[in-house]
């Protein structure tokens, strides 16, 4: 979500319409929702989407993605400045002040957290979250690291290493990838993506955090403009409690939760070629009541804990996929491997 922030230039964005670029060039202009994390909006059209996300209607401001590495090449660099000059009230003056400054303070490079066996899991997660906070949330309107959600995990882990190397501000999707990388190897902690689609003032916004599960408790890691839409301590006894906590947080900012998508546990092996399963369970919060959502989430949580769920990319051909302990009638109606819950099936 985006709040009333400088990237909310709704007029030019509205005129340009909404589209998702599929170009791989460095100058790609992407329709994205960076601000699915921020709760309020100065204008209705303030969101964006990273490349690779599903093509859904959003009411957002478009933001750019750097696709050509570092140092950032000329076109992308100039585009960043052109964009902020348009959105900031001081415009070009603000830009010139920074770009022409003879001296700029060097933002310290935060130390990468170093796991010690004596550390408790909560302490380690806190160290990771503090590291991400030290990188800062990216408000520039240009995403510095390209995240393609369909990429193999090993490729995304390479991007996580790049994030650490370059040490620049990040947004929610990048934070999920970084969180996965920094929790790899801590086998007592399971990680899975949790995506939110919310609505505010007739526009849709997208956000994602990294769910974590350890020793019977759920929590999250993540980055957002709003403090209560990112990290949550490992204190939630059920997945539904965790999701409801986010729903309550969103409500404080007058966002209505429309959809929740829960992925599968991400393997700890950073060299795995399969992609992350982002949306194994899709819940239409608008149609499901709170109680139905709770039941579906708790079932999914149980299934995940029992490790009986398989990602669609890890499964064999469709015929075999239709057989399975966890398969429900709902799944057959939509796709064999994913559950899209729109209403309770009483059959």
């Amino acid at each position, binding site marked *: 979500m985006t709040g009333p922030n400088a990237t909310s230039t709704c007029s030019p964005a509205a005129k340009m319409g909404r589209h998702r670029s599929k170009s791989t060039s460095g100058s790609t202009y992407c329709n994205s929702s960076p601000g699915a994390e921020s709760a309020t909006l100065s204008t209705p059209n303030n969101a964006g989407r990273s490349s690779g996300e599903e093509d859904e209607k959003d009411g957002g401001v478009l933001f750019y993605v750097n696709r050509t590495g570092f140092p950032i090449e000329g076109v992308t660099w100039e585009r960043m400045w052109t964009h902020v000059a348009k959105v900031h009230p001081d415009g070009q003056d603000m830009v010139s002040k920074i770009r022409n*400054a003879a001296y700029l303070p060097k*933002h310290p490079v935060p130390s990468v957290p170093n796991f010690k066996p004596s550390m408790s899991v909560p302490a380690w997660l806190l160290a990771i979250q503090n590291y991400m906070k030290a990188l800062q949330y990216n408000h520039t309107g240009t995403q510095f690291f390209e995240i393609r959600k369909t990429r193999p995990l090993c490729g995304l882990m390479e991007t996580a290493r790049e994030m650490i190397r370059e040490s620049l*501000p990040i947004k929610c999707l990048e934070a999920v990838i970084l969180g996965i990388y920094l929790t790899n190897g801590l086998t007592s902690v399971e990680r899975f993506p949790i995506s939110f689609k919310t609505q505010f003032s007739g526009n849709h916004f997208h956000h994602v955090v990294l769910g974590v599960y350890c020793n019977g408790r759920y929590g999250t890691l993540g980055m957002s403009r709003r403090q209560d839409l990112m990290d949550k301590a490992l204190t939630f006894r059920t997945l539904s409690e965790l999701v409801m906590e986010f729903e309550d947080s969103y409500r404080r900012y007058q966002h209505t939760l429309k959809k929740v998508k829960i992925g599968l546990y991400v393997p700890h092996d950073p060299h795995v070629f399969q992609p992350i399963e982002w949306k194994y369970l899709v819940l239409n919060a608008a149609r499901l009541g709170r109680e139905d959502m709770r039941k579906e989430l708790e079932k999914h949580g149980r299934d995940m804990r029992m490790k009986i769920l398989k990602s669609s990319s890890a499964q064999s051909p469709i015929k075999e996929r239709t057989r399975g302990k966890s398969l429900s009638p709902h799944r057959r109606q939509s796709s064999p491997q994913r559950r899209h819950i729109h209403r309770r099936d009483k059959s």
Partner: protein
Amino acid sequence: MEPTCRKDKVKLNSTPTRGDRAKQKSAQQELKQRQRAEIYALNKVMTELEQQQFEAFCKQMQSQGE
């Protein structure tokens, strides 16, 4: 007999030397550092702006509620 004169081929200096590569790498590092400094300076400004707008929005919603 006149000695055969070889045409001296003009040696194309297209292959960067080790020194050139080191200089290029150093220049790239400096550029990255400068870009990083500018990015964080910009992010500070834009974060402050977002916070101001958020606070203004909250006040507006509060007054509307009243």
